[in-house]
């Protein structure tokens, strides 16, 4: 829990709040999302019923480039790439095939990719962007909050931006203007929506 600066679950039922704190912690930990959230306030009132989650996000780490997970060794006409993290191998190969053509890209084993007679400079290859982890971040966050919220709460309104997010869910129709409720909860963590 150290990764989060502020984390509270507010609920009229104290035992329910304790359970939901545990659930939130487990879900965020499972989905590896504790590292991106800096403040989080959850409000649940089963009597209304409503579930509100507001919070702020940490600056998300930058894009993944070829040099971050390979070492590029040019020898004559041949450029050998030694891969240390296989996670990004597939997207990297896709980019190479598109850029240079399949006949110039060879993968003799799991950890080696060889490029033959490519026109690009080795530095240029090192700088190629392979993946952007922030692309799927909002999708992951929304999925995680859907898991945390009680399952029957299927009417949702969510707002995610680079710095802040709010997630409101209920099983009844939501109020037309949720701004006062969201602002009230944001005020508790010392932020403005």
């Amino acid at each position, binding site marked *: 829990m150290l990764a989060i600066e502020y984390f509270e679950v507010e609920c009229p039922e104290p*035992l*329910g709040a304790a359970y939901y704190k545990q659930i939130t912690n487990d879900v965020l930990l499972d989905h590896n999302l504790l590292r991106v959230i800096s403040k989080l306030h959850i409000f649940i009132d*089963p009597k209304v019923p409503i579930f509100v989650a507001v919070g702020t996000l940490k600056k998300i780490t930058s894009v993944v480039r070829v040099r971050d997970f390979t070492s590029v060794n040019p020898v004559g006409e041949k450029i050998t790439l030694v891969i240390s993290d296989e996670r990004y191998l597939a997207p990297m190969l896709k980019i190479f095939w598109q850029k240079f053509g399949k006949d110039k890209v060879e993968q003799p084993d799991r950890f080696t990719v060889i490029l033959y007679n490519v026109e690009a400079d080795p530095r240029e290859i090192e700088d190629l962007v392979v993946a952007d982890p922030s692309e799927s971040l909002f999708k992951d966050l929304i999925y995680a909050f859907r898991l945390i919220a009680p399952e029957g709460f299927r009417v949702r309104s969510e707002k995610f931006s680079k710095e802040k997010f709010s997630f409101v869910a209920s099983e*009844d129709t939501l109020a037309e203007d949720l701004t006062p409720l969201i602002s009230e909860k944001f005020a508790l963590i010392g932020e403005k929506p």
Partner: protein
Amino acid sequence: MTLVPVTYKGGIYQHDVIIDLIEDLGGYIVQKHIIAAEVVLQCFIPHDDIELIRRISKPLFGEVTDSPLVGTEIAVVSMSLEIHHLPHPSCDFAEYARRIGAKTNMVSPARGPGKRISQLSDEERDVINEHDVAVLAFGNFESCIEYKWPALRRGIEVPIIVMGGPDTETLKRIIHPAAEGYVGNVGRFMRRGKTEEEIGILDEIVAEVTRVVEKKREEIAKDPLSVSPARLMDLIRENVPAIHDVTSPTPLTVQMEGLRVKLPYDTFAGALRKIEIEDGITIADVAEIVPSRMRDYILVKILPFSETNTVV
């Protein structure tokens, strides 16, 4: 002769001696599992002969333990089959109860979750009613449980054990009309229970289910069944060879007051009715054979002595 449910655990070597012994003494084997070099028999044996079986199985390192849940079919009703409610805690309990001899089925209403929107269809209700007891796994909020309980219990005739996040006392206070059993502090959680405390709760649920099952057994004993379900199981096994081709783990599921036969109703119901138990008494004389709401299985409901005036 009172038959008591027990579990026998022992080595595979000479386990057929034990099987023969149980059958010769008039007991029935409900389930037999062979796991590596170990045999687990879930069976009914005459109360007076437990010591004899213990003595004979001693050189084989066999162990006989009481397991009151053998011969029961329990419905574990999870509010949905979504990741919110499964695999913890519903599957945790379903699996735990299986280890001690119960046959548990997961039942989940299509529209179970939520507070106002929660409901139970007639098919779901009928499936639950085909079991001996139902364990309803609720969520964490007492106001939610209080609100949805009347809608979910409507029409369920089997004893219900309520599992929920609030503590047992609170559950007892908020649940109207009353359920047969309550286990608190086990609501929705999303991780595997590993600590002693968490596993202790599973034992608590088992204890509560056992209490309810024992109470139901006492009720049945006041007006005993015309034939023991385990005896019918043996008869069907002998007389309907098709049952041996069923790949389900328990082709014949013994319940407290009947039997679930996992064969198609239209093809086999007639044959089942005609099976003779003894002295010209057929199954049709002492039991109702009806189609189950679960797939196209057959449900055998054994009639009590007061209705048939025979005990075989």
